[in-house]
């Protein structure tokens, strides 16, 4: 295989509607483009099922669960350990040093705090936010267009471009990374 043949190009096809975009995804697959070589970019959350795309993997729920456990651990430290770190014991009414109901409150709040902070951080980690490097994108996407970013061998560029145009793409261009 020559260097030109092995060169990979990115094409950005912009569609105005969901229907043609989902047809295009299916057609690209029949042309031998693997799902991993496609990415859909849209201004609204279009689900994978609508476009016939494989389910997106997300670590957010797992990270959230991890954060909840960390929060619970922090709560347990506060509730079960700190009462014994005082140089002298603190008595509140007739309560035990680790009283039941107040401990529930502390554990609940810190578990939720841990879970919610880690959910937020999870979005950043999974999406590689913040990312201010040049990226392949066109502003029309936030105007409601749907773009398919296709990675294909250079030799198939024309074939795929023609196919996408036939399927209703408003424009098909080699994608160029630019500062957003």
């Amino acid at each position: 295989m020559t260097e030109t043949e092995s060169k990979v190009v990115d094409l950005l096809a912009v569609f105005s509607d969901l229907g043609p975009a989902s047809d295009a995804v299916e057609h690209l697959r029949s042309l031998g483009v693997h799902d991993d070589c496609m990415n859909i970019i849209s201004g609204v959350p279009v689900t994978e099922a609508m476009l016939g795309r494989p389910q997106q993997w997300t670590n957010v729920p797992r990270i959230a669960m991890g954060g909840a456990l960390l929060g619970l651990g922090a709560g347990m430290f506060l509730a079960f350990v700190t009462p014994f770190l005082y140089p002298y014991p603190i008595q509140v009414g007739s309560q035990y040093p680790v009283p039941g109901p107040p401990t529930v409150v502390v554990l609940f709040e810190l578990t939720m705090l841990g879970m919610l902070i880690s959910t937020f951080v999870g979005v950043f980690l999974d999406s590689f936010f913040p990312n201010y490097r040049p990226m392949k994108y066109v502003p029309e996407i936030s105007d409601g267009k749907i773009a398919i970013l296709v990675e294909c061998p250079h030799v198939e560029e024309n074939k795929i471009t023609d196919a996408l145009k036939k399927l209703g793409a408003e424009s098909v261009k080699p994608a160029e990374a630019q500062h957003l």
Partner: protein
Amino acid sequence: MANAKQKAEAHHDHHGHGEEHFRQKHLMLDPLPRGRMNEMVMESMLEKPTWKFWVVAGFLSFIVVYFLFYKWGVLIANGQGEAGVMRPDYWGIFLVNTVFWIGISHAGTFISAILRVFRAEFRRPFTRAAELMTTFGLVQAGFSIFMHLGRVWLAYWLMPYPNQRMLWPNLHSPLTWDLLAITTYLLSSTMYLFLPLIPDMAMARDRSTGWRKTFYKTLALGFRGTEGEWAHLRNAMNIFAFAIIPVMFSVHTIVSWDFAAAMRPGWHSTIFGPYFIVGALHSGMGAAVLVLAVIRGTMKHMDYFIRAEHFDAIGKLMLIISMAWAYFFFNDYMVQWYGGDMWTKIMLHYHEYGPLNWMWFGMLFCNVVLPWAILWNPKWRSTPWLVGFVGIAINIGMWFERYIIVPISVTINRMPFTWRQYEPGIEVPMGIGTVALFILLYMIASKLIPLIPVWEVQEGQMAHELKKFGRETVVSVSELE
């Protein structure tokens, strides 16, 4: 036959079930191209402020600087003697305002999270406006509690780490639970505000130049709208929507325990938790509808996004919440009245016949009589200014309620020789300062942040359509997720 058909059509039009009627009435059935909606939201933000805007902003800034920060400096310099708090009224307006602002903040979560979980479609255009209220309301609540703290520079002692004297916070105290709950709620509601804002920041980034471009670009974090980014965002927003509801409930329940955990007449009530939550929702919804009425009346294109149907829907919620509040109030009152405890009886008598009884009756009028009198009527509750007026009244009523619970109830205790009517001092201007800061922050946000989540509106419009069942046209909603 033709005559019958004409009659049927006339009947159809008379009842307003034509497609045009639906489109005028429902935002979700009246879609515009996404680009046009983006333009409208950007224009509403970028519109050059009128002289009235600057006059109001200048006036509010003066109030914030003088009434809030300067007076706070005076309070710090001279001590809590500047305030009217002294035996037995150690808890005064600062705590009234703390409870009040936390209550206001509940509307954001209620509208955004609960209505999202239950897929109430009318929520879509105003979730952000409500979420902003949550964050800005909690800022005022934080300020109010710090004012009450007195030696505010020692606030870090509340943090769970051992200070110089090796003292950890006392986790037996409801006040420490408050710190945990309010901190959790402030952080989580701010994150919950920010997550759905990211796509709109990206939209604003694509349409801005100059410093605004840098601002939106920074906050958009490089969001493009890829499948992965949406999937992570969707997952996170679902987790937040479910998880923030119990956090919201816990916050005001814990605030109520600040009172209910004390063995005082009028405070030691098992129903205070839900009573406070319903009260918070009551004032929060009132504030939300007021904000919506102001946004709709003052900002360009907002009459497209915020329509009579939204006031009607919120009006119904306000009516239900008002009824729930009346139920909890009566429940709380009834048990105390029936209990026959001498001090509680004196306190209830003081509420109803004391020098501030106008506040007690005002509370019932603003929280129950007025909302019920106006909101039962679909036409009235669809009128923005009228529902906004009810919103103001409810907030006045709910402020009265907190005033009655805090300084008025504190006046009556089991030691009659300490009874003294609370006379607020520096708390009054400082409280006004928090109101001014809330409005000022909102005005600034309205010029910087897209108040309408355009992508959520478009998503809703994609899901809605009109269907014909025989001769009847009905609204149909698809489950897109």
